[in-house]
């Protein structure tokens, strides 16, 4: 059975210089169709100028993050009929510079990840150049940070964060969560450096624990928890 659902899509062209407008499209919807399917239908049949970023279509790549009815979600992960609405508003993520329509520039997120050195820091450069053994880890050591490795860097948490909205210098949930992921990793030796980095005005202390980051994560990761754990780490020094 086919239902008709109205898509209200945010349109923005940087060359127009305006604040963007909403355009409405009527989309025939079948059971199982996702928001991304609806957007692709619009692009293929109604308006080829619509820009939307996507890749895997199965909530793995994290490319298709948008706001659907004012809630951050992956377009490929949200079924249209499950929303039970005749009118669906699709907007780009907040807190990122807009490139076009639903496509945002993720550079601030990656810049902050880099600033927090979100990679394994080790002193044994010789071992890394010429590896002779594995870096072994116990199950308990893995469980300390395991849930945070499920992050697909879609950036939805960063978009949902009310602090980033008002204070753009705040590192944001995803970069801080990733910093904790490496801090808690027993193979990492950059704990002191990293806690010093997060212990800045724009660091962990600005989180107001709204919890919206954890609420919107499509992978069930809890960045709000990671920030609280990182606070404890920063207090310990």
């Amino acid at each position, binding site marked *: 059975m086919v239902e008709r659902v109205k898509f209200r899509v945010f349109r923005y062209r940087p060359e127009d210089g305006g604040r963007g407008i909403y355009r409405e499209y009527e989309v025939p919807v079948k059971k199982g169709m996702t928001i991304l399917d609806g957007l692709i239908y619009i692009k293929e049949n109604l308006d080829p100028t619509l820009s939307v970023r996507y890749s895997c279509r199965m909530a793995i790549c994290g490319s298709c993050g948008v706001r659907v009815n004012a809630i951050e979600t992956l377009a490929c992960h949200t079924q249209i009929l499950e929303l039970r609405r005749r009118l669906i508003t699709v907007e780009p993520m907040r807190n990122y510079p807009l490139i076009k329509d639903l496509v945002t520039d993720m550079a601030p997120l990656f810049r902050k990840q880099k600033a927090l050195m979100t990679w394994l820091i080790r002193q044994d450069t010789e071992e890394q150049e010429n590896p002779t053994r594995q870096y072994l880890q116990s199950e308990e050591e893995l469980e300390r940070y395991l849930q945070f490795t499920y992050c697909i860097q879609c950036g939805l948490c960063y978009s949902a964060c009310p602090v980033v909205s*008002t204070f*753009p210098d705040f590192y944001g949930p995803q970069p801080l969560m990733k910093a904790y992921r490496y801090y808690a990793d027993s193979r990492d030796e950059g704990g002191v450096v990293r806690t010093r980095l997060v212990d800045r*005005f724009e660091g962990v202390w600005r989180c107001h624990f709204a919890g919206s980051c954890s609420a919107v994560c499509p992978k069930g990761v809890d960045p709000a928890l990671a920030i609280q754990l990182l606070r404890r780490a920063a207090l310990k020094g």
Partner: protein
Amino acid sequence: MKERDLMLLHYITGIGILVFGSIHIATVFLTYPFQGTIWETTLRFDSIPYAILPVYRNALLAASLFGLLLCTTIHAMNGLRSIIAELIGARKRWVETLLVAVGAFLLVYGTRTILIANALV
């Protein structure tokens, strides 16, 4: 001062407000039976010198009042520092200097009031 030290101070002063604030409120309550006035009169501003001051002429209570003043001032100024920076989107040196000055004024004026109330000056 490092951000973590400031925030640790923020948490400690928050607990201090809870402790000293509870003592302060309890003291106000205690004035009622000792003064023999009705509750409404005890809380009326013009009755405060008569109702509360005698109770506060006690070194321990005066110290707790000073603790409340210190904790409230530090907690409030640090809270304002965060709120203002987040609202305007950046830290401003003049805002922080102003807050330190306001905090220092509140501490001096509050201390003077406590000393007067305790008949120490």
